[in-house]
């Protein structure tokens, strides 16, 4: 027979799933939050998102093809996820060229200096965001006015900064919990609507793209931690639900901390990681100089990932078997 038979090794059947498909689903999951941002802040929000995602893909393409000389490079969409997440973490009035600088840091430094997808120790979008916060503190803390008709918001500060500066009673007077849940509040363009983020996250859960342990541990820890301090001094520390909805916790816990590359993959590891994120977030929010601590807490836990991996290695099947032997 003249035909050539393939002899690639077993298994001979595979799932059709690929990394680009996963990244596409993450992008789809972020769409509700982007749509809400356009509704809340206007078209500028959309442009920032598009510029963030596109510039990230272009920068990655340039790095792979011309600096790392990978001729067979095919975009997998992971850069677009990073770019979009970074865009969602700035104010809707942010300037597009500063955003591109942030993307350059995220993709160029935080991702490709370590070897690209799968090798970066820190979440690239968060590195980009922290870079922008430190380099352009003024631009990063000017919030865009909400432009939709339903908004009755008078303040131009985020709920958490009101809490930090004026206490919980004043913050609760200015912003209702329902407003914060829907997104009728101040903040980064992608973080304001808890509802839109949850819708996107449910889509990811349904597509089995994400491990829910991290968000559950993270949010659970934040709720418990803030509840304890709320009991001690309500006006100074604020209520648990206020902490849940008031800042970047939702986008952080649902979409940033769950970044697969930079978080532990085992159940136990994910649990430890989520709790760590929650504790550090609340320590910064309650006792730090900054009103918000989600980005820093996730980055610190990113740094702890190798250690967490080490202490959460699963016990192989049959590991406890000596006891079985004794009993039997």
């Amino acid at each position, binding site marked *: *027979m*003249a*035909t*050539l*038979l*393939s*002899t*690639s*090794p*077993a*298994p*001979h*059947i*595979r*799932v059709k*799933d*690929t*990394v680009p*498909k*996963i990244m596409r689903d993450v992008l789809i999951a972020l769409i509700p939050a982007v749509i809400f941002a356009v509704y809340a802040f206007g078209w500028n929000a959309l442009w920032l998102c598009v510029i963030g995602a596109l510039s990230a893909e272009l920068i990655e393409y340039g790095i792979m093809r011309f600096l790392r000389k990978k001729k067979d490079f095919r975009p*997998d969409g*992971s850069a677009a996820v990073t770019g979009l997440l970074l865009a969602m973490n700035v104010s809707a009035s942010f300037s597009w060229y500063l955003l591109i600088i942030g993307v350059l840091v995220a993709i160029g430094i935080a991702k490709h200096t370590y070897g*690209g*997808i*799968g*090798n970066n120790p820190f979440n690239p979008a968060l590195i980009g965001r922290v870079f922008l916060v430190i380099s352009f503190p003024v631009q990063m803390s000017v919030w865009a006015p909400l432009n939709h008709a339903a908004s009755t918001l008078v303040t131009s500060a985020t709920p958490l900064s009101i809490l930090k500066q004026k206490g919980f009673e004043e913050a609760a007077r200015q912003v209702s919990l329902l407003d914060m849940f829907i997104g009728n509040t101040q903040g980064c363009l992608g973080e304001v609507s808890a509802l839109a983020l949850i819708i996107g996250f449910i889509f990811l859960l349904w597509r089995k793209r994400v*491990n829910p342990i991290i968000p559950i541990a993270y949010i659970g820890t934040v709720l418990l931690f803030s509840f304890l301090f709320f009991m001690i001094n309500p006006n100074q520390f604020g209520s648990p639900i206020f902490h849940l909805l008031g800042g970047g916790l939702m986008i952080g816990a649902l979409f940033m901390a769950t970044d*697969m*590359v930079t*978080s532990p*993959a*085992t159940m136990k590891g994910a649990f430890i990681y989520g709790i760590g994120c929650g504790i550090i977030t609340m320590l910064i929010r309650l006792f730090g100089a900054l009103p918000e601590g989600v980005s820093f807490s996730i980055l610190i836990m990113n740094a702890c990932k190798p250690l967490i*991996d080490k202490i959460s*290695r*699963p*016990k*192989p*099947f*049959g*590991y*406890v*078997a*000596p006891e*079985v*032997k004794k009993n*039997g």
Partner: protein
Amino acid sequence: MAILSFIGGIHPPERKELAKGRPIQEIPIPKSVYLFVNQNTGKPPAVSVKKGDSVKTGQKIAEAQGPVSVPLHSPVTGVISDIKKVMHPITQKPEELLVIDSETDQFDFLEPLSDWKAYDKEKSHTLLYERIKEAGIVGLGGATFPSHFKYLEAMKKPVDYVILNGAECEPYLTIDDRMMVEHPAQIVGGLEILLKICGASKGYIGVEDNKPEAFEALKKYANDRIEPALVKTKYPQGGEKQMIYALTKRSVPVGGFPIHIGVIVHNVATAFAIYEAVEKGKPLYERGLTVTGEGIAKPGNLWVRVGTPIQELITYAGGLHSEGGKVILGGPMMGVPIKDLTLPVMKGTSGILVLTPEMVSEINETACINCGRCLMACSLRLEPNYLVKLVKAKKFEEAYKYGVLNCCECGSCAYVCPSKIEHVKHFKLAKKLHATLKGGKK
């Protein structure tokens, strides 16, 4: 009743409908059979015939060498026309191959031991044990481990359960299913013999719940000592450790064997062969197998002589649908792909799977994104993602420390991987290296 199973695992498409309903058909004896001498795990037997000798069907033509070895028997009556070396698809080394030109069958069987039920302990230890060895019986599920060897220790240690593995968790394959449907009495009889040898009080037959017909057939022959049990349809349910865990909730210790926890496992087809060896004195020279896959015209279950060229089976099953594709010895998860269709059926060949060219794609590994699916899929709770990184970085000692040697090569991790990483290929490399290095030291 809660359905018994193990932790982890995957659900690949079953595709058993291709051959499931087709009764086992005996195919004509081929003009020539091609018999690899090395057909068992352990030491291959030593050939005791020479070129030009006449042999009968069932005649012993190679002697066992040492305890982990079984003799080989001629599958046909005829003349040995050639002895040569041919690349072996499993060991990937040139191995001795006998070519026997066949004539009309004349049988040369062993003495039947039909009164085995009345044997005392000593007699079953000697006669029945020897018979399993002399009949050349190996694990027919694919591992080809000499069956008698499991009893060498079992006759000294207490054994609680003998388990027959009728899970057939590999997609596509249906021969075990057919064997259970068509020969339940012989399979149960084989289990009775095995219980007799090791003195175990209980025998289970684990059947995946996608084979209700087989389960019902076995149930008719069940008694207080022999219990067919439904287990969950999940890959790799037919793995030895997974099957033991599902039925008894006992875990085979790392680096240990089932006998260490008082269990012995055989494939259902092996039990059938043992029954025939004892009752009829018939050595292992033929077996059932499934010829199936999208690439084959008429999938079915065939009863063939060991040594039949695979090309003849494919021709019998209506030939290939299209040029190219992939021909696999065994199932799609663990089977061995072959290039050369003149290669023969061996004792461990449970199926010939033919995939169409469209189903065969070049695999390009991309970077691991640490999604953790392999962790969820691994039924032995290893960390395939981490182990692959260690093996790729050539940190073999660490890979051994984290259990790469414990891997059963079921391929679940590679099946689910979105980055298309060839976990099993890397693990096999590490294991092979370990065997070479440590084997050399001893």
